[in-house]
């Protein structure tokens, strides 16, 4: 009796299931998925970014989104882009590839952003490209905050546009600088044990730089304890000039620890880990930083004679609550200004395809604070290609070696390193692009 009731119930359940399945197929697919251009309404454009706001790599980089929003708000207050206000959805990935994938998924599938702007981190973004596959989805992936050379492959990453010169370019130019300024010195290198570091090694190899000692660290492992290990290796090898090619928290740990252990060397900081205010914030005494050499493709954030810097400092006071104006803020605002130009170039009814095409055709003419040229063209998705070198003074300002910015440019291959004669476009009136 009981058995029969049970089997009746099972049959009823199966029948319901089958009927339900049939009902679902009967509903037209459109009912679930009304497709318009993602992220664009008559009054708004929604963009997204994933970046470390918490975790070991966060200090410094966590200032970038607020700086971008500050500039976007300034543009929004002045009519937006073709009447549309720009919104930026910010997600914290804690510099972990797993979280970067999850958060980019949220941006694309839940927030339905028009484009991803300024995503940070080489390993993170490689994972995102594989899994979320922005290229296959046709989602523009603009102005990455990484210089990994792999992203230059426009066939593999058709919608991805880098902003920074590649790490290979940086290492090549740095290698040439070492050859010119420190001939015969014993050289040391600290680099991150992932594709960020692999690029650096490739660049130095291309430049023919021979290091007496190379120290690698696992991403996220940087601390005073691990840095003591790096310093002892450098000390044993007798390195006189040390290149620090890592994130800012790693540079900070290396500088602070070597000072504490009484190890003196001429430090050369890569652009990724050379922001003075962040280094101070993570505990590097000003005296340790003084005399160190840094590289940048933007003007020094303390150089108020630069019209772009002066303008962005004004925006920073008015729209960013007067945050300490450093390289991160400058990068954020510069990225935002280029984004506005890209959106304008995509026309009054922007599409994702149109945005990619606009960057390829007009991206090289955009006004930006960068002192190296922008190289965007059909199939060329890498922005800047050059660096200048400076020396940190006692108040942490990066002052160009030799007094004025002399930018050297190169490529990620075997190309020569040449002194640039590029003159960037003037700052648009009131900092509002009219392209």
């Amino acid at each position, binding site marked *: 009796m009981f058995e029969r009731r049970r089997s009746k119930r099972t049959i009823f359940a199966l029948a319901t299931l089958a009927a339900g399945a049939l009902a679902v*197929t009967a509903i037209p697919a459109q009912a679930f998925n009304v497709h318009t251009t993602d992220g664009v309404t008559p009054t708004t454009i929604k963009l997204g970014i994933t970046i470390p706001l918490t975790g070991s790599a966060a200090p410094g980089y966590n200032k970038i989104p607020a700086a971008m929003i500050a500039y976007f708000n300034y543009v929004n207050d002045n009519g937006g882009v073709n009447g549309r206000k720009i919104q930026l959805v910010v997600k914290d990935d804690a510099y972990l590839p797993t979280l970067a994938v999850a958060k980019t998924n949220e941006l694309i599938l839940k927030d339905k952003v028009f484009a991803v702007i300024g995503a940070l981190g080489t390993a993170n973004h490689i994972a995102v490209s594989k899994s979320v596959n922005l290229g296959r989805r046709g989602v523009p992936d603009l102005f990455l905050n990484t210089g990994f050379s792999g992203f230059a492959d426009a066939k593999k990453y058709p919608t991805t546009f880098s902003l920074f010169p590649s790490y290979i370019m940086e290492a090549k130019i740095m290698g040439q600088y070492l050859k010119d300024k420190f001939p015969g010195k014993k050289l040391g290198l600290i680099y991150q044990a992932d594709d960020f570091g692999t690029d650096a090694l490739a660049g130095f190899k291309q430049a023919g730089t021979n290091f007496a000692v190379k120290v690698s660290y696992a991403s996220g492992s940087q601390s005073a304890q691990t840095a003591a290990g790096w310093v002892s290796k450098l000390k044993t090898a007798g390195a006189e000039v040390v290149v620090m090619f890592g994130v800012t928290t790693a540079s900070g740990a290396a500088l602070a620890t070597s000072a504490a252990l009484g190890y003196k060397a001429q430090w050369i900081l890569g652009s990724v880990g050379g922001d003075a205010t962040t280094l101070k914030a993570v505990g590097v005494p000003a005296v340790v930083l003084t005399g160190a050499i840094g590289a940048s493709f933007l003007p020094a954030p303390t150089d108020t004679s630069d019209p772009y810097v002066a303008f962005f400092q004004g925006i920073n006071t008015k729209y960013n609550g007067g945050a300490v104006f450093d390289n991160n803020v400058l990068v954020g605002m510069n990225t935002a200004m280029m984004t506005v130009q890209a959106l304008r170039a995509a026309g009054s009814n922007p599409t994702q395809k149109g945005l990619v095409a606009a960057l390829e055709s007009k991206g090289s003419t955009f006004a930006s604070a960068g002192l190296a040229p922008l190289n965007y063209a059909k199939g060329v998705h890498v922005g800047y290609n050059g660096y200048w070198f400076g020396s940190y003074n006692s108040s942490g300002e990066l002052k160009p070696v030799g007094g004025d910015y002399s930018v050297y440019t190169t490529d990620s291959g075997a190309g020569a390193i040449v002194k640039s004669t590029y003159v960037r476009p003037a700052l648009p009136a009131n900092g509002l692009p009219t392209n």
Partner: protein
Amino acid sequence: MRNFLGHSSRRLKAAIAFPLIGLALFLLSNRVDELRVYQGANVAVFVVAIISIILLTGYSGQISLGHGALMAVGAYAAVLSQIYWHLPVILTFFVAVLAAAGFGAILGSAAGRLTGPYLAGTTLALAVGLPSLANQFGFLGGEQGLNYDVGLPPAWLGADFTQYKWFFWISGLAALIITWLSFNLLGSHYGRNWRALRSNPTAAALMGIHVGRSKVLAFTVSSGLAGLAGALLAMTISLVTPSAFPTSLSFSIVTGAVLAGVTLLTGSIVGAVVLVAIPEITGALATHLGGSEKVTSNLPGLLTSVLLIVAVLLFPNGPQAIMKRTRKSSQ
């Protein structure tokens, strides 16, 4: 005789039900938003992980807080077999199962001698320590991880067939097969042995059940399933990295199993849906409260823990047991 017939009709029903459920899921995946499809893939991954805990804790009575680490073993085995042996994707899943089961067999032999908090502690240590080993050995790829690529969906499925739907199909099929196999395994004499063991090991031993061997077997099977779940999880993010297997993952799947009702196989879907829904709920909550990113990133862990405590206090046998009870009392 009647018992035998009853048994075979149960299997027959299962044989009809599982393909039907599969068909329903397949049809559904064509109709919903891609976000839901992706979440569906995650639900399927958690179903497999939760079943591995149900087998272990609900049936053989052993506790593991280290299943996240076993998932990592499976995932690394899968990706390494793909990179070094160039195995087809389907075979890498089997490698994941075998590697994790082998690891589980060794661990289980040690674990069989431990009970209660000691076993929990040992497995917890594994969850904390094991995944970070990847940072020590270069060939494991460090924090950047190793790319685990199951490839694009086959072309004959059409251009509109998204990557996430492909993930959902693979993990959904795996979850269905695992549920069906576990359903049969637990109905067999192994399942009965484990239940006897869980209720009273001494009595079970007197009945002629080899306690140690049964425990190790349960641990091995459970580990194999965890390994598969790990490989599937890695598939959904196309990456194997230590941060994909944090300590909190082990707690999450135990919470999922408790919510499922640790003895109820069909409850696994409840637990899995809750686990996938938690970040969604906390996200909405954080937006509502206007909290900072720090709040948002810690809220899911908090909610998972609260749910675990509430579930253990209010319905230790799972919400389904409560429904059963109210149904019985109303009859």
